[in-house]
């Protein structure tokens, strides 16, 4: 009488891939329990070998041998390419960011230079400075009596026009025209 197997043993038996004995597998026929690699004469000769040297009914089935190396190589290559690609992309983006920062700094510097130059031009062209320089060089501002005006002949009637509406538009036009 076979002692009852414990639950743990049953579980282990299932998980370790141990083949069941024909007796414990009701659906499997006795003929199917022949070893795959063995010959049919082996069972016949079992009667001749001692009982304890017989091949066991249960044995660990070896896994089918597969070629793992190409898979591993391919995996490593793919992962490697992906890692290198991501790193390169990151590097390129970082480089772009640094370049953008550099250009922004340069742009800011140019803007500051432009502002300084604009201020310098405004200072140099201010009427006060020009007048001072002119006086220093011996020039003087002409007085009304320094200038001669040609006499104007014509009608003596006063011609005062009431033209107030077009003023702003005209002034804006002049502004627009002089804008660089």
């Amino acid at each position, binding site marked *: 009488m076979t002692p009852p197997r414990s639950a743990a043993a049953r579980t282990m038996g299932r998980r370790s891939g141990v083949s069941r004995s024909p007796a414990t597998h009701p659906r499997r026929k006795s003929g199917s329990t022949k070893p795959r690699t063995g010959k049919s004469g082996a069972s016949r000769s079992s009667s001749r070998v001692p009982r304890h040297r017989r091949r066991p009914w249960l044995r660990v089935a070896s896994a089918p041998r597969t070629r793992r190396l190409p898979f591993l190589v391919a995996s490593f290559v793919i992962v490697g390419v992906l890692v290198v690609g991501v790193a390169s992309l990151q590097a390129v983006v970082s480089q772009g960011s640094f370049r953008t920062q550099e250009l922004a700094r340069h742009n800011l510097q140019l803007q500051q230079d432009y502002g300084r130059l604009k201020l310098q031009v405004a200072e140099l062209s201010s*009427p006060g400075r020009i007048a001072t320089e002119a006086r220093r060089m011996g020039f003087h501002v002409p007085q009304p009596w320094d200038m*001669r*005006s040609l006499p104007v002949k014509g009608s003596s*009637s006063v011609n005062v*026009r009431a033209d107030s509406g077009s003023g*702003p*538009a005209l002034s804006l036009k002049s502004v627009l025209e002089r804008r660089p």
Partner: protein
Amino acid sequence: MRAGTATYRAGRSARGRGPRTPPRRLVAMLVLFVFGFSGILIRLVQLQVRDAPSYRALARDQRVRTIALPAARGSLFDRNHQELALSLPAKAVYADPRLVSHPAEMARTVADTLKVDFAEIYAALHRPGPFVYLARGVDLQDAAALEARHLPGIGFLSESHRYYPAKDLAPQVLGFVGVEGTGLAGLELEYQRLLAGRPGHEVVEADPRGVLIPQGANVDVPPVPGDDLVLSIDREIQYRAQAALAHAVKRNQAKGGTVIVMDPRSGEILAMADYPWFDPNHFSQGDPQALRNRAVTDTFEPGSVNKVITAAAAIQENVVKLKRRLKVASSYRLYTKTFHDAHMHPKEAMTLADIIAYSSNVGTIEVAKMLGRDRFYSYLERFGLTQRTGVGFPGESTGLLPHVDRWSGTSMGTIPLGQGIAVTPLQMACVYAAIANGGVWVQPRLVNGIVGADGDVRQVTQSRTRRVISTQTAQTVTRMLAYAVRVGTGKEAQIPGFWVAGKTGTARKVNDEGTGYSDKYVASFIGFAPAAYPAVVVAAVLDEPSTVYGGIAAAPLFRDVAHFAMARLRVPPAPRPSTPPHAIPAG
């Protein structure tokens, strides 16, 4: 073997029927682990759930920085797009005095680098608290030089600094900006909202050394720069007006003066100067009295320049025929007060043109009486002496003209002469501009256009206009004013090659107590040229000149300014206006 088995079975039966109970230490371990893991779990919940926002914020603060991006303040241009005021980026230098170990040495370094006063820096470094400003509006190059020294406890903030490249050109008109970038006076204050723009900010990630991480958080709210203002001021005319004003003030030993140059047709103010002035780059060092734009904010009793309103009203209402000769004495008693002409003369026949040309006080009072106080007051109102001009300037005065209901018995003697009322120089310039403009009053303005950040010029609101007198009346008054310059009190205002129309004014000033008149005067001349085709109106006012008469003190100032303005604007000479009917032979 059998005996052992029996003992085991006996033991099992002795301890109970179920499975064997774990030893106590296992239970204790279990309890310990349960408590331990529970504690960890609770702490995890605390850190990851309850306190997560604060820790997230703490971590964020350690690496994320918000950099304020100040908006560039809009520039002020003259009518020809020349810069009158512009802002440039600058730095504010601050210090944490607690981190400064050698204040004297630090103050010396900062003062030398930034070219500022050592004592101020030294005093600032001894102030309590973690933050003191050492300098504001520092040039970027100077700030960079100081930053390169890596001084402990010194920091920098971005800001902008306002520059007025023409220095003391039109300072009262432009105004000035405080260190915080806010307009404090003048157009800088009036158009603060437009000029200031909207500041932005940038959120960046930085490593512990402060180096920015390029791909870190980069929230960027760009600043919106302020709009630029294109003023009606002409830089060259403004300079010449100021130069002539300074010369006239010195020549006449006056206390101060005002000049306004205006285009009568558009209302554009080409120049507006007040002496004394100041440099807006260093406005804090200026005389507080010089900061006001007195052409707009202060009033004066106009004196005889106001007679033009009396004459215009009389002609418009047809109360005096142009050829009518009035017998004008040299004095006139009205209630309790006797009014005199400037010079004693026998009773003389004068037309209205003579009264204006020779600025007869008595003749003007007689004309005003014919007009009547209500009609006269209505013309003062029409010419804008009871309201602001609306030029768009902070603190503009309305003038002081009592309502006709509150006029005294002598008001009809004083107000037609320009005494007993107070107006701004700009209000009076607008009166003459209305006559030069064919009887149409035009609202004066200082701004021609607004240039947005995109470069588009936006049109300003068109100047208000209203007809005050008819074109024919305006032409007649112009002829009288031209006659006054040709033969009357305004001879000093004549410009070679041009015919000028204008009127002198000599007004006594109210004493300091406000109880009567002092022996101080305001001399003025307001006119336009060329008389036949007016291109510019010039108001010249001198405060307390040694030579009190407007025809002597202020008329030459008018001449200098008007002559230059016409040359600058390339105004061609115009024909002479016809002579109005007169009784006194032209000398």
